[in-house]
């Protein structure tokens, strides 16, 4: 069952004297129990996408030009802010990159999870029983593998480590049982050993709650390990999208290939790393394929227009080398 469908989303930012195209014609779908990765570097638009779907974009300066964000059958991009509150939490839940900004510093961990439980109960029109909620909170903490759950429940956020806070967020997700979880770089600030624990926990709760996950990251390896489907963003556009194994083992877009090669996988004695030359600069890229200045396979045709998406062997690719059609 489809949890989220983004169709042709285009978002601009007002910046300096003009406009920056943060997202252009971005489409993707998320099914239940599916973890869809959005992979991109700085300037790719991935954070804008996460904020747009959760309706947290500040507008102005962001302006949505076109597209729909379909959740539970209706376009939430058009919903009034007052109605959005009904969706947050039990419908769409967000886990952010900086754990220390996520929780209320003045409330005990236990109370914040109990609050999440009560929101869910209210949504389901069920009675709230304090003792039952407390037991539920401890149980959720144990499910997300927090050691000494009873102890941790009585603590305040500043007494927890980054990894523990992210686990508390996942416990709250368990409590609210949203249909869609948006995770914006949830493990970037964590150590590698903690990260692998969080990723396993995330997979477990996805199984249990059947929720769909939009997993935004810059780390290809992390996406590879946890996502079923992946979309690679560059210059605000989806350049390649499809099943994770296809993207990682049979990458088609030159940017995807360059990104995979950039991850160091050899010693310096074996020669320099294959680096993508240059860096992303949005100036002058509006009407051409944005990767052109850095692409090793760039040709004149790349500047004729913005390439349209083509379906090639189970993957969506936006590159002239796979079909010379352009977006109008």
């Amino acid at each position, binding site marked *: 069952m489809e949890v989220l469908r983004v169709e042709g989303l285009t978002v601009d930012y007002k910046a300096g004297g003009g406009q920056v195209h943060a997202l252009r014609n971005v489409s993707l779908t998320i099914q239940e129990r599916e973890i869809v990765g959005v992979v991109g*570097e*700085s300037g790719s638009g991935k954070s804008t996408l996460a904020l747009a779907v959760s309706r947290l974009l500040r507008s102005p300066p962001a302006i949505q030009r076109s597209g729909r964000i379909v959740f539970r059958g209706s376009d939430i991009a058009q919903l009034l802010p007052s109605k959005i509150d009904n969706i947050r939490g039990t419908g769409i839940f967000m886990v952010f990159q900086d754990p220390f900004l996520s929780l209320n510093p003045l409330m005990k961990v236990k109370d914040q999870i109990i609050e999440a439980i009560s929101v869910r109960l209210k949504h389901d029109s069920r009675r709230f029983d304090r003792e039952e909620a407390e037991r539920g909170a401890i149980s959720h903490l144990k499910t997300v593998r927090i*050691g000494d759950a009873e102890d941790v429940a009585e603590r305040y956020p500043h007494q927890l*480590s980054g*990894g*523990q806070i992210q686990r508390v967020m996942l416990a709250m997700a368990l409590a609210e049982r949203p249909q869609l979880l948006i995770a914006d770089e949830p493990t970037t600030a964590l*150590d*590698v*050993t*903690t*990260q*692998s*624990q969080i*990723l*396993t926990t995330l*997979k477990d709760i996805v199984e249990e709650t059947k929720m769909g996950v939009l997993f935004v990251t*810059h*780390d*290809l*390896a*992390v996406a*590879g*390990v*946890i996502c079923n489907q992946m979309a690679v963003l560059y210059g605000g556009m989806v350049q390649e999208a499809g099943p*994770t*194994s296809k993207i*990682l*083992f049979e990458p088609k877009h030159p940017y995807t290939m*360059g*990104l*995979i*090669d*950039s*991850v*160091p*996988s*050899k*010693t*310096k004695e074996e020669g*320099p*790393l*294959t*680096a*993508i*030359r240059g*860096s992303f600069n949005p100036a002058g890229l509006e009407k051409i394929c944005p990767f052109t200045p850095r692409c090793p396979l760039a040709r004149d045709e790349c500047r004729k227009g913005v390439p349209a998406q083509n379906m090639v062997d189970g993957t969506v690719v936006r590159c002239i080398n796979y079909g010379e059609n352009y977006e109008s």
Partner: protein
Amino acid sequence: MAPLSGASTTVRTTSRKPESLLEVEGVAKQFPLGKRGLWDRITRKRPKYVRAVRDATVRVRAGETLVVLGESGSGKTTLGRVIVGLEKPESGRVAVSGDPVRPVRESGATRGRLQMVFQDPGSSLDPFMKVRDVVAEPLVKSSLSDDARTEKVLQAINNVGLDQSVLDRRASELSGGQKQRVSVARALTSNPEVIVLDEPTSSIDVSIQAQVLNLLVDLQKQNGYAYVLITHDPNVARFMADSIAVMYLGKIVESGQAGQVLQQPKHPYTQALLAAAPKLRDASIPDVIKGEPPSLINLPPGCPYAPRCPHAMDVCGEREPQPYLVEGVSVACYLYDKDVVSRAEPAS
């Protein structure tokens, strides 16, 4: 070469000696926790300390890279700062070409010979300064003429692959990757012998990281710098390292040749760390370490990794293991003490 009369007693020859350029021995560094107010002094409350680095010993040769591999709380950054003199250790010594490294505020023979590149490009450069002034800063105290300084700045900027038009821009106007290059350029102008790089590519895009790493390798080949590269990323370690020191909670738990440490890790923490890093094109989530690392303030006695170690024995909780030399690699783990292993029962 006979020393000129009246000059300093240390003479640096142009050829690099084959022995270690950088020597770090038995370094320990701790930080007091919180402020001691008047009341605490009156009641003679014992101050608490964060023991960030305990007994660190490493050596690096000219033209080689030592990677200090560890996660947050491992003490790797503190070790890097002690090496360049930004922190004064409680015990131990750091020497470059035999000259002891003095803390930065004291004048000493080693100023300019050790440099550092920091992790966060955003705070590495004074946002209000022009790039040319940033890169020239290490030369402020030198006796070079203005022309000579400009020459060195130009050279450094070119060496890091930046166009000289960047010199007149303000640091705040540059991208993350450009800022890191300027950071590296600044580290080059004083012709250092040792460069400590603290997570130099962690805060920039992975596609730019590859460029910066290639650049660092080239610079080292041209100039023979000794690098101490601090990172948490085993992939970066694999690419850059000649030797590796793995740190956990302030201790170096394993150190040796890069190939050996990475292919055949001996310490249980090294094994867990290497296994936990997600590998591209490998869909299994490694889930090997349980629990959380304990705090650096109330360290349990014995090996710091014991609480989480699947092979922990009774003795591990009693005394910290000394490093054992095993196949050319130094490991601080009782598993490699033959007497202990034969006697001990594994703790449940």
